[in-house]
């Protein structure tokens, strides 16, 4: 158990090269400091869960990571590249290696499920052959157990199905890193368990490294190899799920025992 750890020292102890390396990250909106000196490493094929109360900057953190929100201070290195120093084209290239599963799924509601999945293929990889597109779409949908939903519109899908299609749409570009923003938010316990299982399957099948943002304890327990607790914009405690659960830190204790 590492209370008040120095992540830089921790990282140095580990021989593997991190896929994502965040150092002294700061982000404010007006006077409100959302991220205040965050330090994190994500290692290859690791599921890193970030837990914390609403408003602690969890989602802002991963949006900074893909350059959706520019950070104020600190370094974010993704696969050795400093995000803030990339040109627009370089950033787009890097983003192809990162899959982002949004909290609300963010499916394009004017398109069918099939068109949602074809969209990045056509635009990023220039694939327009109907046979090839169909093969890739069905393969991605089979990965999430929804091959039969290809011709439905997002409005016809349940919350859990939308999450699965959202994950399939990111997987279709074969990313190396997956970012899940509240993957189980708003879902019933059974569907949540299925999504947790899917996150583990994705890692196993595609060898992805994942950051999972959640405040769902069962999601953190099921999916996380390592759990980081974000408190007041800082990564306060880090360890396995069991280590965090046994923490005597009042903030962490309150979170786990509520």
């Amino acid at each position, binding site marked *: 158990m590492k209370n008040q750890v120095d992540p830089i020292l921790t990282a140095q102890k580990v021989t593997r090269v991190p896929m994502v390396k965040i150092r002294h990250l700061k982000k404010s909106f007006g006077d409100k400091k959302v991220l205040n000196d965050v330090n994190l490493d994500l290692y290859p094929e690791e599921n890193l869960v970030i837990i914390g109360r609403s408003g602690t900057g969890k989602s802002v953190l991963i949006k900074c990571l893909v350059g*959706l929100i520019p950070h104020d201070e600190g370094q974010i290195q993704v696969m050795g590249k400093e995000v803030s120093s990339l040109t627009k084209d370089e950033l787009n*290239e890097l*983003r*192809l290696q990162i899959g982002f599963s*949004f909290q609300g799924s963010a*499916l*394009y509601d004017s398109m069918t499920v099939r068109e949602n999945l074809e969209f990045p293929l056509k635009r*990023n990889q220039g694939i327009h052959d109907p046979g090839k597109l169909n093969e890739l779409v069905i393969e991605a949908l089979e990965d999430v157990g929804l091959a039969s939903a290809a011709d439905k519109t997002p409005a016809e899908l349940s919350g859990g199905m939308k999450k699965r299609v959202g994950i399939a749409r990111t997987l279709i570009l074969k990313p190396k890193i997956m970012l899940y923003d509240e993957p189980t938010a708003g879902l019933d316990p059974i569907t949540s368990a299925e999504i947790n299982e899917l996150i583990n399957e994705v890692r196993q099948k595609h060898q992805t490294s994942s950051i999972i943002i959640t405040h769902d304890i069962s999601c953190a327990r099921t999916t996380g190899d390592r759990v980081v607790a974000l408190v007041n914009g800082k990564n306060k405690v880090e360890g396995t799920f069991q280590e965090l659960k046994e923490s005597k830190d009042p903030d962490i204790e309150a979170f786990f025992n509520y």
Partner: protein
Amino acid sequence: MKKQLTELASITRFVGSTIYHFFSSFEARELIRQCYTVGYRSFFLIGFTAFVAGVVFTKQSRPSLASFGAESWLPSLVSQAVIRSLGPLITGLICAGKLGSNIGAELGSMRVSEQIDAMEVSGTRPFSYLVVTRVLATTLMLPLLVVYADIIALLGSFTMVNMINNSSITLFFNEAIASITYLDVFSSIIKSAFFGLAIGVVACYAGYHSHGGTAGVGKAANTSVVVSMIFIFVIDLVSLQFINLFR
């Protein structure tokens, strides 16, 4: 003051980005789809409004002309009024309402439901796909819609004239066209292209930068319509002064 200047800088950047992305990545398929949405789907409303405007304008102008014994000037009066001012203005205002709210609300809801962010993180350049195509579509289709509205309004006018005087369509259109100059036609088309540009830029800007959930979407749609309409009146006034230099 600082807020207004920041907003102005943001709008300038947005227009600059639209021009840059137009030349750097051209989205032909989506542009055609948007032209269909903007143009074809507006035909009925524009046609209906133009026809009624033609009928009403003729009905209301005729007694005044008749009192001076100048009833035969009616086709010339109607055609000049329609082509120089009424056609572009009516089409512009209808499109500001119909297209402005549509684009503002569509992009606004895509923004608040993170669909634009999803495009961004998958490296698909949403600006070229969503904004440039819509701005181009409104700019290209407004002049066509104005020409269409002009013809329908003149047909409406002829219908009214014919109901009263049983006039010939050839005679009516000969009279109407004779009083129109090339300057009238070209200035009307160019003016309407600027109307389309204003509607596209304003609606896309409002939608693309909307925030604050469903309330933000409503605000984006509202801003698109109101600001587009103001721009249309301003462009109409400025173009009137400019065109008068050549008359």
